[in-house]
């Protein structure tokens, strides 16, 4: 444990404290932090009034919301659809986890090629079917970025939902069938509530990861056009490395951390509530046997 603790403290916890400290300073990367001026909450206040920062906060929230919603619906839907005894299921799952293992940078470049207005595969196919091409990386940039993320991460939810489905007590489902429940009713009243605890943890993991996304967007749109896809992570890295305003970037990170902690705490409390309900349901199922 000791080596792990030392490394985590040196490379995670100490830097975090250092970041918070730096966010109160006028921090230029060429100086050591001791030489910089203390500015109190100025960085935070300036950011709060900055429309560009608010815009990127808004883009981040929009991106995270749509990505998680679409992926949860698709992933769980697929799992419910494919939850049958099927030959070649393991091959299928292997094919589905391939997108997750590929570097985000490569995913970005793959989709950048496919979205290309004239050369790109998607527009070429659209034209062949008789539609006019879509301006993917222009007006629809945010949508394009969301599609790319959905392609990469829906399988994650699919696999976890499938694992949850297959570990459900079969007695509960059979009992529901005996009572004459339709497929739809079984899914809605038995399967989904029992899966809920796993689904919520999955949702939480995806939500956290949605705030980490950066490379795909960087390669696909470079944040543009305008600020339409400049998520917070991208803005932080720009501010730090291109504009070299470490204090401002640190304050942005502070806001991002605050946002993440609030969301996680809310989800965590909700998880506890749902878990209790699922346990009650499981107990009911066990008693009816």
């Amino acid at each position, binding site marked *: *444990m000791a*080596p*792990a*603790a030392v*490394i*985590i403290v*040196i*490379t*995670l*916890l100490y*830097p*975090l404290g*250092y*970041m918070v400290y730096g966010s109160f300073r006028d921090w230029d*990367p060429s100086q*050591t*932090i001791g030489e910089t001026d203390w500015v109190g909450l100025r960085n935070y206040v300036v950011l709060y009034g900055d429309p560009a920062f608010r815009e990127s906060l808004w883009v981040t929230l929009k991106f995270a919301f749509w990505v998680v919603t679409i992926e949860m619906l698709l992933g769980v839907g697929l799992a419910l659809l494919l939850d049958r005894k099927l030959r070649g299921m393991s091959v299928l*799952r*292997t094919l*589905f*986890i*391939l997108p997750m293992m*590929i*570097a985000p940078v*490569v995913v*970005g*470049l*793959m989709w*950048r*090629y*496919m979205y290309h207005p*004239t*050369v790109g595969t998607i527009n*070429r196919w659209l034209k062949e079917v008789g539609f006019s091409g879509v301006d993917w990386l222009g007006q629809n940039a945010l949508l394009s970025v969301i599609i790319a993320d959905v*392609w990469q991460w829906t399988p994650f939810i699919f*696999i*976890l939902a499938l*694992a949850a489905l297959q*570990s459900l007590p079969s007695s509960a489902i059979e009992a529901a069938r005996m009572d004459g429940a339709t497929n739809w009713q079984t899914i809605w009243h038995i399967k989904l509530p029992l899966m809920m605890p*796993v689904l919520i*943890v999955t949702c939480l*993991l995806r939500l*956290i990861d949605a705030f980490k996304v*950066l*490379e795909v967007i*960087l*390669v696909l749109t470079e944040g543009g056009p305008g600020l339409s896809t400049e998520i917070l*992570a*991208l803005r*932080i*890295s720009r501010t*730090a*490395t291109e504009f070299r305003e*470490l204090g401002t*970037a640190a304050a942005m*990170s502070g806001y*991002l*951390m605050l946002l*993440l*902690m609030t969301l996680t705490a809310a989800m965590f409390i909700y998880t506890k509530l749902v878990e209790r309900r699922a346990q009650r349901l499981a107990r009911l199922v066990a008693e009816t046997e």
Partner: protein
Amino acid sequence: MHAQDRQHPAFYAVLVALVFMSVGPICLMFINSFKLDVDILSGTSGLLFMPTLQNYETALCDVLPYEPEHLDYCALKIGGSFVNSLIISIVSTALTLVIGCMAAYALVRFQFMGRDVASVTTLAVRMLPPAVLLVPVFGLWNNEFCIDKNSFVGELIRDTFGGRGDVCLAGTHSGIILVYIAMNLPFVIWILQSFIVQVPRQLEEAARMDGAGPFQVFFLVVLPLIRPGLAAAAIFAFRIAWNEYLLASALSDRDTKTVPILIVNNMSEFNIEWGVIMATGMLLAIPPIIFTLLASRQIITGMTAGAVKG
């Protein structure tokens, strides 16, 4: 039974469409990496073209056009970004595993002060976006964690390795490796914990009765039993280190940059050489694809251990 039989054609159509959608883009990139840019851009035929290895050659070789004897000679980019990527991801994965499995074992089996705090911290740290880590690590590695060039240790290092200014972590392999270990440790500990819990205590006690010391118990009894967990953890740690871009780009210099940086640098140029970029991307994608095909079961177990038992 009958109703289900009738569903089958549509069901299989959905299945085929899904596989096509998830693997299609990868196949497209694979095919395009063997095309010349002319073929990619003309776009008249998807499959009718002369396959060429030229893109891979450009991606992998240093061509020195001004020296005639080098014209047809492929000097592998030794010390180039592929080698950097390999060194950084292999070393960081190995170290993460060694440290992580010991930490996980300690967290599961031993009672000590601050155990719960450590357990919660590992979970909380998973939340941290690399972008948040970027600012402080950038500052620390460039300025604060430096050894003064005039101090004894600093002089010793500079005499051995060369260099002019203070000795800093930025721009070195170890600087990047250290960050990746820290990023991966919490996740690895988390996965391994759920595997170690399943190792029966009696087995360890029996080994101890036979006179095995604590290290022997750990290495000869526990480790072989959690091999699938180690495989899963190794693949996840390798995947992150091999694919990561942001921190690598901020912390590396010309000599230590990794393949993702190479790709992004080529992307933002005005005239994109699609063929070469796709070949580079393919080379970057191959190790994770091979791992996935070889160990998909372990990967899925690792993923479910993360969520279902979390």
